[in-house]
């Protein structure tokens, strides 16, 4: 498996009130062609920033992003604009992602117009094809405005727009967290189906481990801008090495009253990313933390085959 996307030592910094906020600190990841990499973490952990930094929508302050052998971090202007067509993005809020004053047909055709497909007939044919692929009836849908549709239908439209140019990599940023449970399953199944049909590579960003597990081959866990753990999905669920991964797993509410909720989960909340703890950023909530964790930033190292964790005292 060759890496389609490789992220090396990526750092994204914001200036917040004169202070530097490291939204993403020194993250390295690879996504193989045809693979789905799940990226998990709580709000403020930098997972969405990472997604946008890959597309250069937010310029990284350090590190490199290489897509299919081209270094995106070095591209500019026209070259970057052309490259972006091979990478697409799907957002959390499907309704806000659609221009409220343009018709669905217009919105889905927009990528074709931008890439210079002049022939109206061809545009319409391709719009109809992709709408059918995402399970919408083109005749009923094309002339309408976004507000006439439910969240789930809007997400289908967003997926259609992202797929019409047949991209290679799609970054899904919390694509189902704004949707109801029954609709969520439809969209997850649709993404899986689209992945197969269009031969996509997915970077799937979400806060819900169960949702990520349903679609991912490998999972990366982030906490306060840093990578905690990366590994094959089933292995990571069966034997989490990082205490934070274990905490996330325990915190998932299980729809079964015979499973009592885990008591006394790690107290506290993630500290402010403006003022992260020294050493390991999870140490303030970690039951295993000691002086080493405060002094030394743990490096990502291989715990088991293909499973990497950044922890001085890994579990298991």
């Amino acid at each position, binding site marked *: 498996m060759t890496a389609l996307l490789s992220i090396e030592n990526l750092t994204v910094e914001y200036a917040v009130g004169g202070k530097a906020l490291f939204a993403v600190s020194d993250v390295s990841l690879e996504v193989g062609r045809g693979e789905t990499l799940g990226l998990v973490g*709580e*709000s403020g952990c930098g997972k969405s920033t990472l997604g946008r930094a890959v597309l250069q929508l937010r310029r990284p302050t350090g590190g490199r992003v290489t897509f299919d052998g081209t270094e995106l971090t070095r591209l500019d202007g026209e070259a970057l604009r052309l490259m972006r067509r091979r990478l697409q993005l799907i957002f959390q809020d499907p309704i806000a992602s659609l221009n409220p004053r343009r018709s669905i047909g217009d919105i889905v055709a927009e990528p074709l117009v931008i890439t210079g497909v002049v022939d109206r007939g061809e545009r319409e044919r391709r719009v109809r094809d992709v709408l059918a692929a995402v399970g919408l009836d083109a005749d009923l849908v094309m002339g309408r405005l976004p507000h006439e549709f*439910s969240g*789930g*239908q809007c997400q289908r439209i967003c997926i259609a727009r992202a797929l019409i140019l047949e991209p290679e990599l799609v970054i899904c940023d919390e694509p189902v967290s704004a949707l*109801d*449970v*029954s*609709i*969520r*399953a*439809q969209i*997850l*199944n649709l993404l*899986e189906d689209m992945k197969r049909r269009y031969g996509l590579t997915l970077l799937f960003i979400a*806060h*819900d*481990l*169960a*949702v990520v*597990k*349903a*679609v*991912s*081959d490998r999972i990366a866990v982030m906490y306060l801008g840093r990578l905690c753990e990366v590994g094959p*999905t*089933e292995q990571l*669920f069966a034997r989490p090495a990082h205490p934070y991964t274990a*905490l*996330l*797993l*325990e*915190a*998932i*509410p*299980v*729809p*079964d*009253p*015979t*499973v*009592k*909720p*885990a*008591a006394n*989960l*790690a*107290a506290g*909340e*993630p500290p402010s990313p403006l003022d992260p703890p020294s050493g390991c950023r999870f140490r303030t909530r970690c039951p295993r933390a000691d002086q080493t964790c405060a002094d030394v930033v743990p490096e990502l190292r291989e715990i088991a085959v293909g499973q990497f964790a950044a922890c001085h005292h890994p579990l298991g």
Partner: protein
Amino acid sequence: MTAPLLSVEGVSVELPTPRGALRAVDNVDLALAPGRTLGIVGESGCGKTMLSRAILQLLPKRARLGGRVMFAGRDLTNLPAEALRRLRGPELAVVFQDPMTSLNPVLTIGTQIIETLQAHLGMDAAAAATRGVELLAAVGIPAPAQRLRQYPHQLSGGMRQRVAIAIALSCEPKLLIADEPTTALDVTVQAQILDLLAREQQRRHMAMILITHDLGVVAGRTDEVAVMYAGRIVERAPTSRLFAGMRMPYTEALLAAIPKLDSPPHTPLPAIAGRPPDPTRPLAGCSFAPRCRYADGRCRAAKPPLGDPERAGTLYACWHPLGLSESASA
């Protein structure tokens, strides 16, 4: 079984819209005993929030309410505004989904807690301040005395929800309605807040209605669960019985649609096709029939009543309940 603290009898809520009346809540009956927890589960638009507003008598002005809401022997629907106001706080309290909007952004947390205590319990300022610190400590806020001087925006989402809970608990209510209290929070914080609610509820012997879209949240933390769909309660049962054997296909489908932690990646999820019906156009039959695998002509023609044909404490509204033979259900 003690006499119910709250009993909702045939409550309906209608909202006028440009496209006609929208029946947000349709003839709902509920009962809740003191100290018990009822989970109300449903997807967005199923009427669960409107039902909670109807119980609290906090419906939008234009809404039309039918039925009775009996709380501690009084009918809240025809209580004068002043009596209702006195009831909220010491008797009835609520925690909303978004603590940022339920807390006043320009007042300190201390002011908000202390004013509540002074208004409802007639405490003097010093006593109220002391009590405020105790309350914040009780909901797990570190350094509570300092927090009293802070504004809501200076706290994290989880801390704000703790403050909202502290305010709700400040007058020792008999019933707490928690409307999606953890939906806006991260998973690890969600577990903490749910633990906190459960702990305080037991300590105070308070009744609680936990409204959520997540079956996982109600599973471990409620005594009874009511599942709502399209404005109606479609299944209601003691929590353990419900999860042991669901009768209503909607409840089962809702549970099946949640990704399971123990199934391998790329397992297709049994999704529920379609979407909920348009609430301004009620169907003649069962509202779930258009999406139901088991639906037949009868389901589309006649609305199944909510009943307990097995006389076992499980109520459901379905012509073809699961886990039973067809003869037993008739």
